[in-house]
């Protein structure tokens, strides 16, 4: 509860900061604020679970650890903003405030105990993202990304809301505990199952799983690069945490009705994400399709309803977000020099900027799942738990596909060593190097000692 309150106040502080003439200090202050909130949240990690606002929010180990992860992601991305907003400094406090409000939505999404809070959290996160996707107002691509995201997102929210309504109609309550009691106590109505399917469709839209993934590559390509990084990390982790929390509390008992649909969609998501990524030329589109594939892997956590999946899901979210942020930090430097997000733009980086290239290579190794980085153990824990739930064929399929995915991650790595006239003379901003360094260092630490990052 206090995490949500303090984060909201931090967002309001960002809005007022422009009046107080704090533009130069804003980003360091916000990062400091996020670190302090993180510290206060960490103190609650082993506290008893407690409920607030008439059981609207409940803090437990799950919500506290995912809140910490979201705070870490936001702190890293806000620090990247120092350079990114240089051309348009007068809007800095607005953009940072919207990012912080998106974080508030994310925190509500990981700690809800009531459908109302679930819906409000999803909407706060999504509406902030619609604005952030369109922050590059003069660029038609950014406009188009915002428009597509808005239309798809509000349509998906409508379907999700219909699902929530039907579940309310069947069970007579918005409270998660009451809904799960209803589902266990007697034979549920048909509209309860229709409600589950509609909520499933809405959430699959939000996490960009096939066949509802088609907005993701376009939106990721058109949005400004920093916002792409934010959407593909904060948005994805928060949506998955909400997805898991809702389905494990309320709907695990009805698993038989939707389980096979989910298994088919997981296989489809992994396949489509992988094979679309193989023929992409743009770095952002590759990471967008890699996000679709990884969404398929993470969906296995929701599908393995009998396993203890909080830990593997948390670790997967951590390793995926850190690797993505590290890769985007390097790509931000490259695109600021070459004004392009094609893979060819990376040509020759290894000879001119060896440190940044090494960091990008490590990040790519981690997403591809090569030991000793965290990505390998994330996949290992997830697949091992999924096997315990009896998803043998699905796990086999996922392993084959994660071997195929190595090809397109290595396409980026090979580009670094290609010959090119590009000299990369501009020194990279120290912020980009620092953020990439922190992300990769955490990836290595989490890979060497995974137990440190497994709160469950």
């Amino acid at each position, binding site marked *: 509860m206090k995490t949500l309150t303090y984060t909201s106040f931090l967002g309001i502080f960002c809005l007022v900061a422009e009046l107080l003439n704090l533009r130069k200090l804003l980003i360091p202050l916000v990062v400091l604020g996020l670190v302090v909130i993180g510290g206060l949240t960490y103190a609650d990690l082993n506290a008893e679970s407690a409920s607030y606002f008439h059981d609207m929010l409940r803090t437990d180990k799950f919500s506290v650890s995912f809140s910490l992860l979201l705070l870490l992601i936001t702190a890293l991305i806000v620090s990247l903003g120092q350079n990114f907003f240089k051309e348009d400094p007068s809007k800095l406090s607005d953009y940072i405030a919207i990012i912080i409000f998106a974080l508030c939505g994310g925190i509500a999404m990981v700690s809800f105990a009531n*459908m*109302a809070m679930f*819906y*409000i959290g999803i*909407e706060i996160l999504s*509406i902030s993202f*619609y*604005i952030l996707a*369109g922050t590059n*107002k*003069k660029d*038609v*691509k950014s*406009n*188009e*990304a*915002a*428009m*597509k995201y*808005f*239309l798809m997102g*509000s*349509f998906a*929210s*409508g*379907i999700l*809301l*219909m699902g929530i*309504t*039907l579940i*309310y*109609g069947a069970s*007579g*309550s*918005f409270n998660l505990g009451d809904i799960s009691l209803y589902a266990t106590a007697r034979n549920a109505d048909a*509209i309860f199952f229709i409600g589950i399917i509609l909520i499933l469709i809405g959430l699959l839209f939000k996490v960009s799983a096939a066949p509802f993934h088609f907005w993701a*590559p*376009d939106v990721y*390509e*058109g949005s400004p690069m920093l916002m792409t990084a934010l959407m593909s990390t904060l948005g994805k982790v928060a949506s998955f945490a909400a997805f898991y929390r809702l389905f494990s509390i309320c709907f695990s008992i009805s698993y038989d009705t939707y389980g096979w649909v989910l298994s088919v969609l997981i296989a489809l998501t992994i396949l489509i994400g992988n094979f679309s990524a193989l023929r*992409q030329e*743009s770095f952002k*589109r590759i990471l967008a399709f890699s996000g679709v594939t990884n969404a398929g892997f993470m969906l296995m956590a929701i599908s393995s309803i009998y396993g203890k999946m909080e830990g593997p899901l948390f670790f997967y979210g951590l390793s995926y977000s850190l690797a993505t942020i590290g890769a985007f930090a390097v790509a931000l430097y490259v695109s600021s020099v070459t004004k392009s997000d094609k893979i060819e733009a990376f040509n020759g980086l290894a000879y001119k900027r060896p440190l940044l290239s090494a960091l990008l290579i490590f990040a790519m190794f981690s997403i591809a799942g090569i030991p000793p980085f965290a990505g390998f153990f994330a996949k290992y824990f997830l697949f091992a738990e999924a096997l315990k739930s009896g998803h043998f064929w699905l796990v086999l399929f996922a392993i084959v596909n994660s071997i195929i995915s190595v090809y397109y991650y290595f396409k980026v790595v090979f580009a670094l060593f290609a010959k090119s006239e590009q000299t990369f003379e501009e020194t990279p901003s120290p912020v980009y190097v620092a953020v990439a360094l922190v992300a990769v260092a955490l990836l290595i630490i989490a890979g060497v000692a995974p137990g440190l990052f497994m709160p469950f």
Partner: protein
Amino acid sequence: MSLLLNILQVVPMQYYLMVSAALFSIGVLGVLFRRNAITIFMCVEIMLNSINLLLVAFSTYHNDSNGQVFVFFVMAVAAAEVAVGLAILVTIFRNIRSVDIDDLKALKN
């Protein structure tokens, strides 16, 4: 007046379900087939309003006021969403002088 109230109370639950399902489908089909962005916004609003109708009907059916409170949340969120959507639409109109979503083709591969 009391006659009207009596009629309202004897309308069975499934009629409300049917009306909102019909409205919801009209909204969904509108989003899928219309090409004008403002019409699409209105179709999303029709979807949300059919949900509001259903929430109020369920709320009366269960004798539980939570559903009616939820309607206010939905309305507030819908207003915020449309405000953002129209702002995005204005920036698009400034750049390409059109609100037809078929004119948005910069992002295709």
